[in-house]
């Protein structure tokens, strides 16, 4: 990107980093093409396996460094599920742990220069959010049957207002997967685009020091955002799960 500023003509292409390319050879990307998305998703899974399986292999009472990292992450997500969704949601803890670790690793691996951020694509985040939406809706209907629909009935509101509020609640319910996915995708894609814009400015000699300092600051912010968005995605999943398990207001 930086080498493209020739003769004062500054070209910044902040969106080039999001291109999905086949990993081997050229050609169109089909459904089963092994692309850079596949590679970095596989690396995220590999990282999770390294942390949780290889890291805890010692099973020591006094944990080693790698084991205590894995235990910290496990305990953090477990506490989140119990605090937000309640004790009866621990059954769904594996799913939520999977979501958290996958998004965290995908985000953090995406911060490595020249790597590819899988969560910066709406296709990836929308799949995750739709999976959460379907799971939560199915859990709600299986656990409560038709009375799950009482989620949309606000008993604390005055009676004439309830149909209106129920309509709004239904719209909000179906807006959940949209906001859930767009939040993660938008935060990551916007952050990476901003980083690339600063990187482009660094090619201009007289503002390069400022641009590099700005880049450093944005990079630090992006590191925070990577962890925070994984946390937010997971905690919203917990909130939706709580609604499905206890729909009665």
């Amino acid at each position: 990107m930086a080498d493209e500023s020739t003769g004062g003509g500054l070209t910044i292409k902040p969106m080039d980093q999001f291109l999905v390319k086949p990993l081997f050879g050229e050609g169109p990307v089909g459904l089963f093409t092994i692309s850079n998305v596949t590679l970095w998703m596989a690396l995220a899974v590999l990282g999770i396996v390294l942390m949780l399986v290889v890291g805890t292999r010692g099973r020591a009472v006094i944990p080693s460094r790698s084991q205590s990292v894995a235990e910290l992450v496990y305990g953090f997500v477990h506490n989140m599920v119990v605090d937000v969704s309640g004790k009866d949601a621990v059954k769904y803890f594996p799913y939520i742990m999977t979501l958290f670790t996958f998004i965290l690793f995908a985000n953090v691996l995406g911060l490595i220069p020249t790597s590819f951020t899988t969560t910066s694509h709406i296709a990836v985040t929308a799949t995750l959010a739709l999976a959460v939406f379907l799971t939560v809706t199915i859990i709600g209907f299986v656990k409560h049957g038709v009375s799950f629909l009482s989620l949309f009935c606000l008993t604390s509101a005055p009676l004439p207002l309830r149909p209106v509020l129920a309509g709004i609640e239904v719209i909000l319910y179906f807006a959940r997967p949209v906001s859930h996915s767009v939040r993660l995708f938008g935060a990551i894609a916007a952050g990476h685009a901003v980083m690339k814009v600063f990187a482009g400015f660094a090619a201009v000699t007289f503002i390069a020091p400022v641009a590099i300092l700005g880049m450093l600051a944005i990079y630090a912010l992006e590191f925070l955002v990577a962890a925070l968005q994984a946390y937010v995605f997971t905690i919203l999943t917990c909130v939706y799960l709580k609604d499905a398990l206890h729909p009665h207001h």
Partner: protein
Amino acid sequence: MEGNIAELGLGAGLAALGVGNVAGNFLAGALRNPSAAGGQTATLFIGMAFAEALGIFSFLVALLLMFAV
């Protein structure tokens, strides 16, 4: 094109006001009752996420205007 980018800036700035409002009010409440603050950090982040999402929606609209429309 310039109009779209101005919209994006406006949306991002207004979302920043929202996020700042959430964080500031949380801090004000937390300083009044520090013992209750620890249990509410999850609520803080959920509130921030909701405020931030609307700013990101403006970014999404700008992206759609730039690339899709």
